[in-house]
C-alpha cells in the first residue's frame, strides 16, 4: 500500500514546529505502524535528512513508551491498542495519515513526537505505593483477598502509564491514570492503611503538575489501550470524600 504521512516535526522544546508531508511507499499490511515509520526514517537518513524522533521500546504494547496521536486519536483508531501494536492492515491504501505528539500542558514536547511525561512519575512519587520496607512483611497467604477484589485491583493495575488518557482529555486531566493507582491499592487490605493520605497527595500532585480536572467526557476510557474503566475515577472520588470523614 502507498500512504501520505503528515508528521509533526519540531526541533526542540523552544521550536514552533509544523506538519511535514512524507510519502510512505510499498508498505506491507503486516507491518506495525512503527515499523512503517522505521522504513520512512531509513529513507530520510539515506536522503541525509533528520529522521522522525518518536518514543518506543518494547513494541509489544506493555511498556507504555510509544505515544503518538494518529489521525487525531491517541494510539490511533483501533480499540485497546497501543500504536506499536497498531498494524497497517487497519488503514486503506492511499490514505492520508496525520501523526502528532501527545498534546498537554504537563507534557512539554521535546522533539518531533517525543514529549516529557515525568509529571506522571511525580504523581506516583506522591503516594502510589504502600510504605513497606524490604523484608519484614507477613506471609503472602495471611492476607486473604477474594478473587473479585483481586480482579478489580488487577483491572486498575493494568495501566501502562502511556498518557493516552491525558492526550485524549479536553482538560488534559490525569484523573484516569491517578485513579487507577488509587483504586488498585484502596481495595486491598495492604493498601488501606495509607488510603487517605494517598488519595489526597496524589490528586494534589496531579493538579500541581498542570493536569486539569475530570468533567466526565470519558474520552480517556475510549483512548486507553488497556481498557481502564472510568469506574475507577468514581472510586477515586469516593476515596477522596472518605478522606474528609
Amino acid at each position, binding site marked *: 500500500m502507498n500512504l501520505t504521512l503528515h508528521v509533526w516535526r519540531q526541533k526542540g522544546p523552544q521550536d514552533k514546529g509544523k506538519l511535514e508531508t512524507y510519502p510512505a511507499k510499498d508498505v506491507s499490511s503486516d507491518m506495525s505502524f512503527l515499523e512503517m515509520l522505521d522504513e520512512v526514517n531509513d529513507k530520510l537518513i*539515506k536522503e541525509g535528512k533528520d529522521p522522525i524522533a518518536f518514543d518506543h521500546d518494547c*513494541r509489544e504494547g*506493555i511498556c*507504555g513508551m510509544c505515544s503518538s496521536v494518529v489521525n487525531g486519536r491517541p494510539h490511533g483508531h483501533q480499540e485497546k491498542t497501543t500504536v506499536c501494536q497498531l*498494524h497497517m492492515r487497519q488503514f486503506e491504501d492511499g490514505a492520508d495519515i496525520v501523526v502528532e505528539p501527545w498534546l498537554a500542558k504537563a507534557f512539554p514536547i521535546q522533539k518531533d513526537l517525543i514529549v516529557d511525561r*515525568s509529571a506522571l512519575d511525580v504523581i506516583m512519587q506522591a503516594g502510589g505505593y*504502600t510504605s513497606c520496607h524490604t523484608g519484614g512483611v507477613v506471609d503472602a497467604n495471611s492476607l486473604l483477598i*477474594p478473587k473479585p477484589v483481586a480482579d478489580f485491583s488487577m483491572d486498575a493495575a493494568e495501566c501502562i502509564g502511556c498518557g493516552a488518557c491525558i492526550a485524549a482529555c479536553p482538560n488534559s486531566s490525569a484523573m484516569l491514570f491517578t485513579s487507577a493507582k488509587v483504586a488498585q491499592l484502596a481495595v486491598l487490605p495492604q493498601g488501606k492503611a495509607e488510603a487517605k493520605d494517598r488519595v489526597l497527595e496524589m490528586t494534589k500532585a496531579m493538579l500541581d503538575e498542570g493536569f486539569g480536572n475530570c468533567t466526565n467526557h470519558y474520552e480517556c476510557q475510549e483512548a486507553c489501550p488497556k481498557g481502564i474503566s472510568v469506574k475507577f475515577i468514581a472510586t477515586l472520588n469516593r476515596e477522596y470524600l472518605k478522606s474528609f470523614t
Partner: protein
Amino acid sequence: MILDGKAPTGPIETSWDRSRFDMKLVNPSNKRKFKILMVGTGLAGGAGAASLAELGYNVEAFCYQDSPRRAHSIGAQGGINAAKNYPSDGDSIYRLFYDTVKGGDFRSREADVWRLAQVSNNIIDQCVAQGVPFARDYAGYLDNRSFGGAQVSRTFYARGQTGQQLLLGAYSALSRQIKAKQVTMHPRTEMLDLVVVDGVAKGITVRNLMTGEIESHWGDAVVLATGGYVNVFYLSTMAMGSSVTAAWKSVKKGAYMANPCYTQIHPTCIPVHGEHQSKLTLMSESLRNDGRIWVPKKAEDCDKHPSEVAEEDRDYYLERKYPSFGNLAPRDISSRSAKEACDDGRGVGPGKRGVYLDFDDSIKRLGEDTIRERYGNLFEMYEKITDENGYERPMRIYPAPHYGMGGLWVDYQCQSNIPGLFVLGEANFSVHGANRLGASALMQGLADGYFVIPYTIAPYLASITPGTVKDDHPEFKKSIEDVEAQTNKLLSINGKKTVSELHRELGQVMFENVGMGRSEESLKLALKRIPEIRDEFWNNVNITGESRDLNQQLENAGRVADYLEFAEMLTTDALHREESCGGHFRVEHQTEDGEAMRDDENFCYSAAWEFKGAGVKPELHKEPLKFENIQLAVRSYK
C-alpha cells in the same frame, strides 16, 4: 587463571544464612556516607535501588527509558516461581534448587542457586505487601500455575502481565525513595563508560539522551542491572533499546564476560513474517499448560488448513518424545524440537518456519471462557499481529531469541572481578547455567535486588573509605574524552547504510550460525563474517544529526557498535565449548536420538573471557563448577 566464585562451603541448606552472618555490616550512621550508582532500574535495579536506599545509602539510579516503570522486565508475561508449596504438591526449597540446577544443565554455581530458591518465598511476600494483585481463588488464597521444566505448580502470576505487575511494585518502592530524596533518579540517561581508578570501579560516564551532554558520576560502588544481550540477534523478544553496552563497556575496562554462548531461544513466539520486521513477540510459555504443539506428520499436509489434517496425521512431537513432561518440556528442548520439525520440511505457515499451538482440546474440555480468562490478552495480541483468531484455528509459533543466561562474571557476592563493580539480574551469569527455566528470570531479578545485594555489598563498602575518589579525578576527564571521541567518530563516517540495516545483517549471521544449532563450520563462518560487518559499519554507516541533541540514530549506533564486538566473543565462546548443554547445542555433540551431550570431564566450568581488543582472541579464564549436592546426571525429561 582459575577464578574463585567464593561460594560458601559446608551444608548447602545453611550456606546463605551462614554467609549472611559472616558478612561485615555497615553501621546505620555510616551508611549515609556512601554513594551507590545503580545502572538500570528494571526488576533487579529498581528493587536494588529501593532496598539500598531504605537502608540509608545514597543511591543515584540511571535508566535509558523516560521512566523506570518501562524497563523491559515489564515484558515478562507468565509468572514468577517460588517454593511456597501452597498447593501441597511436593514442592520445597530443595526441589526448586534441584529443578533449577538440572534445568540449567549443570552449568551453574550450586550455592547461588540455593540462595535464589531460599529467598524466592520472601519475594512473593514482599510483592503482596506492595499491593501486587497476584491471581487469587474465591477464598482469597494465591493461585499457582505450572511452567516448563517442573512437575509442581509453583508459578505465581498476575494474568499475562506478571512482569509488569512486579516491575510496578519495584517502581513504586523506588518512587517512595525518590520522594524521600534517598534516590536521585536520572531517566533518559545511558551509561557509555565505566570509570576505573587503580583497578577499582569508581564511577560511570553517561549521555543525557535529551540534550546529548556527556557527563560523569562518581560512586563508592557501581551496580549494573542492565539486562540481557540477545538483541545481538537483531530480531528478538527484547525491547528495542535493550543493549549489551553497559556490560560491554565494563568488559573493555577489564570485567570478564562469562558464558555468553548460553542464549535462550524461546519456543513460543510469533513467527517472522517479513523483511521489515523490527522485533519478535513472545507468547507466554504458560500457554503450553493448555495448548498442544504439533506439526503434520507428512510434509504434503503442511499447506492444508489445520482442521483438515486428521488426528492420526498429526505429530504431537513433544508428547511423543518426552511423555512425562510433554508440552511442558524445558525451553531449550522444545525450541530445538520445533527447529527439527521445520528442518524436516514439516513446518507450517509462510516460509514453513512455524509449528501449531492448538487449544482445541482445552476449549472442548474447559470451554472458551476459561481459556479466555486465562490467556485472553495473549490471544488478542496474537490476533493483532497475525490477523488470525487463536480460538478458531491453532496459533502458529516459532522459537525466537529471548534471554541471555551468560553475562558478566560475578562471585557469590554478585561482585565482578573489578572490585566495586557489582552485577545483578540478567546482566550477570550465575544462576541459570546453560538454560533458564520459565518464571525464573523474575525470581532472579527480584532476589538479587531485594534480598541479595543489600547484604552482599556491605562487606565491600565496609572495607573502603567513602568519597575518596570523586569526579575531579583525571580518570573521569579521560573517560569523558573517550566517549566524546567515539561519538564524533560515529558522526563523521557519513556512509551509505543505516544502523538498522547493519544490525539486521549481524542478526542474520548470528541466528543462522550461532543460533539453535551450532557447528564448528557455522561458528567459523560467523567469526569471519562478524569482523567484515564491523568493518563496514565503521566505514559505511550513515548517522545524521548532531551529538549535542536528542539523536536516536546515534544512540542505536553506539549499541550496535558494541554488539559488533560482543558477537565475536559470544561466537568464540560457542566455538571453544566442544559439548552441547542447555541452550548451547553443538551438532557434533549429540546422542543418537538428537539429545544434547554434555562433556563433564572437560567442560564442567564457567568460561569467563577477558577482552584483549576488538578482533583479538579474548583470553579464557575458568571457574571450575563443583556439584556436591546434586549429582551430575544426563538431563532427561522423558
